[in-house]
């Protein structure tokens, strides 16, 4: 700690006391200051220890991780199996998702593009699907109620066949025409 010489001189002048001999290599500080210094030193020491410990743990973890990776990928069939399982899991997840949101089936490629966007990476598949469908407006609830009025045709409703239709049927498929006649199904509109 840095000690200021000015502070020491001022003290001796104002109080007219016998000059004291100061031993070389020895510094005197106030008790409060000393306690403060001591506390800081202890904290610093603890932080150092913690940092050192953390560094050690990190090192151990990395070693462990390296060892594990090596042990898994050294075995080729297992690797393939894992890839297969991963692929199947993806398929199952996709199927479940399509079952829940059938509309996704036709726009799956769009959904994958959406998933791969930077903002959406790492999002849970279901959440991602919900977000995608909401964004597309495909999760809107179906409105129930009265049908919208269309005004309808101005022509009166006709329950029979037009003369041209009957003529065409008679000329091109007489068997059906005669069957319909026998059943009374030919009525002119």
């Amino acid at each position, binding site marked *: 700690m840095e000690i200021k010489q000015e502070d020491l001189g001022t003290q001796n002048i104002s109080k007219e006391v016998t000059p004291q001999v100061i031993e070389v290599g020895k510094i005197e500080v106030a008790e409060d200051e000393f306690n403060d210094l001591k506390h800081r030193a202890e904290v610093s020491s603890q932080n150092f220890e913690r940092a050192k410990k953390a560094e050690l743990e990190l090192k151990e973890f990395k070693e462990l991780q390296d060892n594990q990776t090596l042990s898994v990928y050294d075995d080729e069939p297992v690797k393939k199996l894992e890839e297969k399982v991963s692929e199947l899991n993806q398929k199952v997840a996709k199927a479940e998702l399509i079952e829940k949101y059938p509309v996704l089936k036709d726009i799956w490629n769009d959904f994958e593009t959406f998933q791969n966007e930077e903002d959406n990476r790492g999002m849970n598949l279901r959440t991602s699907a919900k977000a995608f469908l909401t964004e597309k407006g495909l999760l809107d609830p179906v409105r129930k109620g009265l049908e919208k009025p269309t005004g309808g045709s101005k022509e009166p409703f006709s329950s029979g066949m037009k003369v041209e239709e009957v003529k065409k049927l008679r000329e091109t498929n007489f068997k059906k025409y*005669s069957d319909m*006649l026998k059943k009374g199904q030919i009525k002119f509109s």
Partner: protein
Amino acid sequence: MNLSNFGEQFASKVLAKTYSNAIVGVFTNDNYDGEIKKPGDRVNILSFLNSGELQDYVVGTDMAVQQLVDAEDQLIVEKRKAYNISLDRLEDLFTYADDIPDAMILEQSKVLEKTIDSYVLDKVGSEAKAGNWIGLDLKVTGSGQTEASITTSATGGTVTVNANSNTYESQVGSVENSTDGANYFAGFQNADLYKGFRLRSTSTFVSPWYRISAITSSTVASLTEWDEAISGPDFEENYTLRGTFGGDGTSFPKNGAGDASLIGMSSLGWEFQAAIPTAVTAATIYDQTTLLAQALDDNEVTAEDRKLVVPPAGITMLRQAAELQPTGIAEIYSGTVLNGRIMRFGGFDVLSAAGSRVSIRAGHSATSVTGPSADLVLSATNGYIIPGNNTGFMTYADKWSESRVVDAENQFAKKYQGLFLFGAKVPRYRRKYCAVLFGSF
């Protein structure tokens, strides 16, 4: 109603009424393939000629394969009937009736109905299986004075008969019919065409019934099998007719049962099936029509969809018949009468063929004196050809091919013109689906 729509309205209304009243709708079937476009067109009828086969199955042994023999018969749309009606009077009616008058439709449909029904019923006499006729048979008993011989030909055979040949060469004269004791002309007549003919040695040794396909003279006629087949597993080798070794009338063992062939025998007699119409009365009509059912059963014709077409006089007799009293076995169509169906009995739907739709044919001639042909006085009795059949027997096809309203030439008026085409066909194999009662009322 707009006159320009008259054509389609007229055709559909007339046809609808015709289809609901004509017996053709239930008497025939429409199992054909193809579309009629113009007169003379042909449509196809598919038939399977062989019966189903069952074989014994032996474990570990390959099964024999049954080959289906199919044939395609062609139905020619041979009939064409035209309408050409002036509409100037009708035009006034449309202004307030707004429809084609019912009376007009009714009359037109009745004419069409009768035309079609008469056409299909007329085919029965030439298409029903020889051997399936119920009537009075003419039996010429064999003796030293008779000779009947058959020579086989490419299509079947030729038969030559000669009665009293010692006295009158190439003449047959008259003979006494052992069936009813009356005298009849013994030779061939047009009345016998398409009926059954068989050689006869004794009453229990006869040939099968052959079909008289053509008559050359009173002593010579052409014969074919009922289905016009000339070979098959039931034919004797080198013969184009079945059962030439004879049998008891029901069974004809292949190559006979130890007897000689009828074809080589002398002094044979002969027999015409249903040569003379049998008298039908209220007391006999029930029994006579049940014989039709037996003929169909003998040919293993399915019991479903059997129809009996009877003229009005016959319907009256059926209603009077004791067997059908007190309620009639079933006058089930007492409400709305469709396609002429008025009752059901003996496994038949009975159809009333109004007017003169059921065909009439002259029977074989009776003679009042005996002697050579030149001296005979012949008289024949007419009989109705009453069919009892399964609907598979005949296939019918029709088409109202043209229907138009045109301006009448040289008049300020319009005309309706229509063309109706139709035809019917009995595939040869299905001749057995029909039996005929040849009866007089």
